[in-house]
């Protein structure tokens, strides 16, 4: 049984002098197993070639398709239209990131800056000899570290965060999760004092107001609440 669904989207090009932000309404037939990605592609093909939005993988892996769906940040490629009973989906671009056009925002450069800010790479004094086997790690430690590596940098935790919206320099859950990832990794020789230098301030761990919308909206269900509390305990103890 197919129905007609309504998709409303904010259209706005901040780089154009004549563009005025406005909502546009599209009506289309819902198909079986339709995702928001499929719906938007259909709109672009049949109704409005000018509508901008981002996709790459269509499978919840690349993290490019985050947008506000009825007020909540979600991956459009993992959003099934049939879950919306009244068949109305109101779309906004994710806040907190630089708006490119319509539903497309620049998460990439933001994530890049975040990675640099938390020095998101292994810091070690050991010389790596790639001809030799890596030193083994406890499987449980490896598992916990890789669990945090599942982050796809979609930016949903950032867009969901009221603290971040009020205070644009706040590092966000993705950054704090990244710090926890390296803090736990035995390959990384950095101490808690080193991490304090990166996020030990009100733009970092101590700025978090524990609103936990990151935790509740992360499409990868990363243990953000858990890891932020963990880093807070570690860094508050630094002398």
């Amino acid at each position: 049984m197919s129905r007609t669904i309504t998709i409303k989207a904010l259209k706005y090009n901040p780089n154009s002098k004549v563009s005025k932000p406005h909502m546009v309404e599209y009506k289309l037939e819902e198909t079986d197993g339709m995702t928001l990605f499929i719906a938007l592609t259909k709109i672009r093909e049949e109704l409005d070639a000018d509508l901008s939005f981002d996709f790459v993988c269509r499978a919840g892996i690349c993290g490019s398709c985050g947008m506000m769906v009825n007020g909540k940040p979600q991956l459009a490629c993992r959003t099934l239209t049939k879950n919306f009973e009244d068949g109305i989906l109101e779309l906004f671009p994710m806040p907190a990131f630089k708006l490119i056009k319509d539903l497309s925002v620049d998460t990439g450069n933001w994530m890049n800056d975040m990675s640099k800010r938390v020095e998101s790479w292994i810091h070690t004094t050991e010389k790596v000899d790639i001809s030799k086997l890596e030193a083994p790690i406890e499987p449980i430690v490896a598992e916990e570290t890789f669990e945090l590596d599942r982050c796809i940098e979609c930016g949903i935790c950032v867009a969901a965060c009221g603290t971040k919206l009020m205070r644009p320099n706040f590092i966000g859950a993705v950054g704090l999760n990244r710090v926890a990832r390296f803090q736990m990794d035995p390959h990384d020789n950095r101490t808690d004092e080193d991490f304090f230098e990166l996020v030990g301030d009100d733009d970092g761990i101590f700025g978090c107001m524990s609103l936990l919308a990151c935790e509740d909206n992360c499409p990868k269900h990363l243990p953000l609440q858990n890891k932020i509390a963990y880093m807070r305990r570690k860094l508050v103890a630094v002398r």
Partner: protein
Amino acid sequence: MSDLIEGFLGKSVEGKKSRLPAKLDFVQSATGLFLGLFMWGHMFFVSTILISKDAMYAVAKFFEGSAFLNEPRPILVSGVVFFVFIVFIVHAAMGMRKLPTSFRQWQVYRTHMKMMKHEDTTLWFIQAVTGFAMFFLGSAHLFLMLTQPGTIDPYGSGDRMLLLWPFYILLLLSVEFHGGIGLYRLCVKWGWFEGSDAKVTRKNLKKVKWAITVFFLALGFLTMAAYFKIGLDHRDNAGERYHPSAMVITHMNVGVKS
């Protein structure tokens, strides 16, 4: 000189970040925890009026040192209030850092809250608003208790409730919402009681939080009603101090003899 350089650059001469933000966060939580738990104790003490006037009177006199001194001394209560006031002021100073301070911050948070309909995001806003209200309500109440500790007894408090009940309703609502949400937030903020499944724990914490809020609001309103009724019955003698029934009987005996 190094203070000047640190203030100017935002990092110490050794190139280190200040440890102060960590301490401030800790102090915010520690003072919040103290105040939250203190308010639980406070509610149990004032609600002894639901048992009897004498019970409340005994509690009031206990805090004036009745257990160790011959003469109760209200100044002791002032001392306790003074300490709580200091903690309260420190906590308010810490809390201030988090409140929205510009129109844009206010606007963006309100919009976000309306869009997201996310419970903990909304609860934070309630915490901020009630915290702001307590700058005034809490200070006024604490100032009264600091300067007139001797008026705390069934009649004195009843008179006060009759006069100030709208004020106390606002204060009760502010304290219970702010403190309840605050204690819940403390748990998730520091990972207390986290257990093996933080998500399940958080759901349970939320339930406990609401149960506690409902319990203390109910107890608070009943207690206020009790003081209000005493104030009403005692209206014609407002200002008079309470004498516990046991003492009144002794006086009467004395009267009969002489």
